[in-house]
C-alpha cells in the first residue's frame, strides 16, 4: 500500500515522539504501508518552506521507504525555478498548503501550468486538522472546494491531487472536477466511505493518504479493510493510482 500523504518533523499540533521519521515509518509499516510520500512538517508552518524542504530531502536520501514531496509556495517569485530544481532531482510530486500559508488555491494557476509542462503532480492540501480544535492564535483556515475546482479546471488534463477532503467534499470534487482530479482518503470519513466513493465515482481517482502523524495510520487501513474491495479495485486504490501519478 502506497501512502501519498504524510509528514515528518516537529510542529505545533503533534507530540514530538510521534513525528520522527523512524516513528512514522514504524506506524506506517504496521498499517501495511510499503512506501510513503512525505512532506516536511515544519514547511506547513512557514510561508518560506524552502529550508524545511532541504532538511527533509537530505534526511530522506538513503530511505527506501519515504519519497520526498516538497512543499512550495506559489506566491514566491522564483517558485517555477524551485520547481525546476526538484524536477532535475527527479521529484515528480509537489504539495501546496494554501490554508497554512495564507493564499487562495487560485494563486497556484501558474505553478499548476508549470507542473503540467514538467510532468509533475500537484497536491493541494485542503486542511490539516479539524478547524474546531485548532488552538487559538494558530490560523489554519480550510481551503474552499470551489477554489480547488477552479484550479483543477484551469488545466483539465493535468493531474491534481486533493489531500485532506472531508467525505462530502470528496464527492463534490470528484463529481464536479475534471478526470485528472484525484482525492486522498485521509480525512474523508462516513460509514462505508470507500465503497460509497467508488460506487459514485469509480476507483481510478482515489488514493491512500494516512495524514500521519496528525492521524493514526491505522485509520486509512481500517477504511480500506472495511470496504472489502475486489483485488483489482483494491490494487487501484492502494498502489496503481499512486504509481501512475508519480509516487
Amino acid at each position, binding site marked *: *500500500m502506497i501512502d501519498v500523504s504524510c509528514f515528518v518533523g516537529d510542529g505545533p499540533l*503533534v*507530540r514530538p*515522539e*510521534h513525528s520522527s521519521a523512524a516513528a512514522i515509518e514504524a*506506524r506506517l509499516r*504496521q*498499517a*501495511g504501508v510499503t512506501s510513503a510520500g512525505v512532506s516536511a512538517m515544519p514547511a506547513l508552518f512557514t510561508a518560506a518552506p524552502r529550508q524545511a524542504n532541504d532538511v527533509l530531502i537530505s534526511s530522506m536520501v538513503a530511505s527506501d521507504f519515504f519519497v520526498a514531496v516538497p512543499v512550495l509556495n506559489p506566491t514566491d517569485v522564483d517558485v517555477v525555478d524551485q520547481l525546476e530544481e526538484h524536477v532535475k532531482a527527479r521529484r515528480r510530486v509537489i504539495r501546496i498548503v494554501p490554508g497554512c500559508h495564507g493564499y487562495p488555491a487560485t494563486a497556484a494557476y501558474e505553478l499548476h501550468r508549470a507542473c503540467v509542462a514538467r510532468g509533475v503532480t500537484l497536491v493541494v492540501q485542503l486542511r490539516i*486538522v*479539524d*478547524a*474546531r*480544535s*485548532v*488552538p*487559538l492564535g494558530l490560523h489554519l483556515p480550510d481551503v474552499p472546494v470551489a477554489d480547488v475546482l477552479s484550479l483543477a479546471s484551469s488545466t483539465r488534463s493535468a493531474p491534481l491531487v486533493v489531500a485532506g477532503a472531508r467525505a462530502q467534499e470528496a464527492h463534490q470534487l470528484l463529481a464536479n472536477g475534471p478526470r485528472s482530479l484525484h482525492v486522498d482518503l485521509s*480525512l474523508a*470519513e*462516513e*460509514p*462505508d*466511505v470507500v465503497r*460509497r466513493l467508488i460506487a459514485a465515482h469509480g476507483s481510478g481517482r482515489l488514493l491512500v493518504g494516512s495524514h*500521519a*502523524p*496528525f*492521524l*493514526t*495510520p*491505522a*485509520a486509512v*487501513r*481500517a*477504511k480500506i*479493510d*472495511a470496504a472489502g474491495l475486489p*483485488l483489482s479495485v*483494491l*490494487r487501484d486504490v*492502494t498502489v496503481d493510482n499512486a504509481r501512475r501519478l508519480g509516487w
Partner: protein
Amino acid sequence: MMGSLPVPTASIDAHAHLGSGFQPWRGRDLAEDLVRTSAERGITGTLVSTLGAEGLLEHPRPEELRAANEITRRAVERWPENLFGLVYLSPEHIRASIEELQRHVVDGPFVGVKLWIALRSSDRRLDLLIERIAELGVPVLQHAWYKSVGGTPGESTPLDVAVLARRYPEVLLQMAHLGGAGARGLRDIAPHANVVVDTSGSDPVLGEVEYAVQQLGADRILFGSDAPIRDPATALSKVTGAAITDEERDLILGGNARRLYRGLRRT
C-alpha cells in the same frame, strides 16, 4: 497483496445515533445499517440515542423529546441483542424529561441518559433531573467539547462536566468526545472518578488514546464512534491503532461499558 488486519470481537460502541437527521447508507433503514456495519467490525453492542425525529434538535420541546425517544425504542425492540437505548432528555423541560425517564428507563429497557447541548452541564437548572437520575443509578452520556470555533451557548466543555461531577459524585458521567476534549479536557475531569470519557469526536488523531490512558487509566475510557456522523471502522482504529496493552484495549473496547452499563452485561 495485503490481507485485512484482524478485527477485534465483541466490542461495545458506547456512542451512536439514530433518527431522521441521518441517511441510511446501505438500504432504507438506518438502524439496520448501523447494526450490520458494526457487526462487520466486531461491534456486537451499540448504545444509541436519537436527538430529534426531525433533524438534530438542540432545544427539543417535550413532544419532540417523546418522538425522538420513540425512534430509539422501536430500534431497540427490533434489535434487542445489538442496540441499547439512551433516553434523550432536556433540562429545559424537567417534567417531560422525568416522564421520559420513567417511560424508557424505569418501565422500559433503556440503559442510560443522553444530554446534549440545551444547557451546560454546570447549569443549576439540571439539578432536579440529575437527582432523579441519581436515584435510578443509570449513567449519563453528556456531550462536551473545547471548541475554538463553532460552539453554542448551551454546549458543555469538559470543565462544565467536571463541575457537575463534583456536585453529584454518585452519578456516573460518560463525557462524550475525547477528540474534542484535548489535554485540557482530560485535566479537567481527571480528579473526578465518576467521569469516564468516550473516544468519539473528530478525526482519529495519533496518540490521543495513548495519552488518555496515561492521564485517566484505561478503566475510564470507552470506545465510542458517534456513528453515523463518523464511521465505526475509522473510529475503531483510534483504539486498535493505539500503542496500549491488550488488557487496556479490551477494557476500552467493551470491558468498561459492560461494567458501567448494567444492561450490557449479557452481551
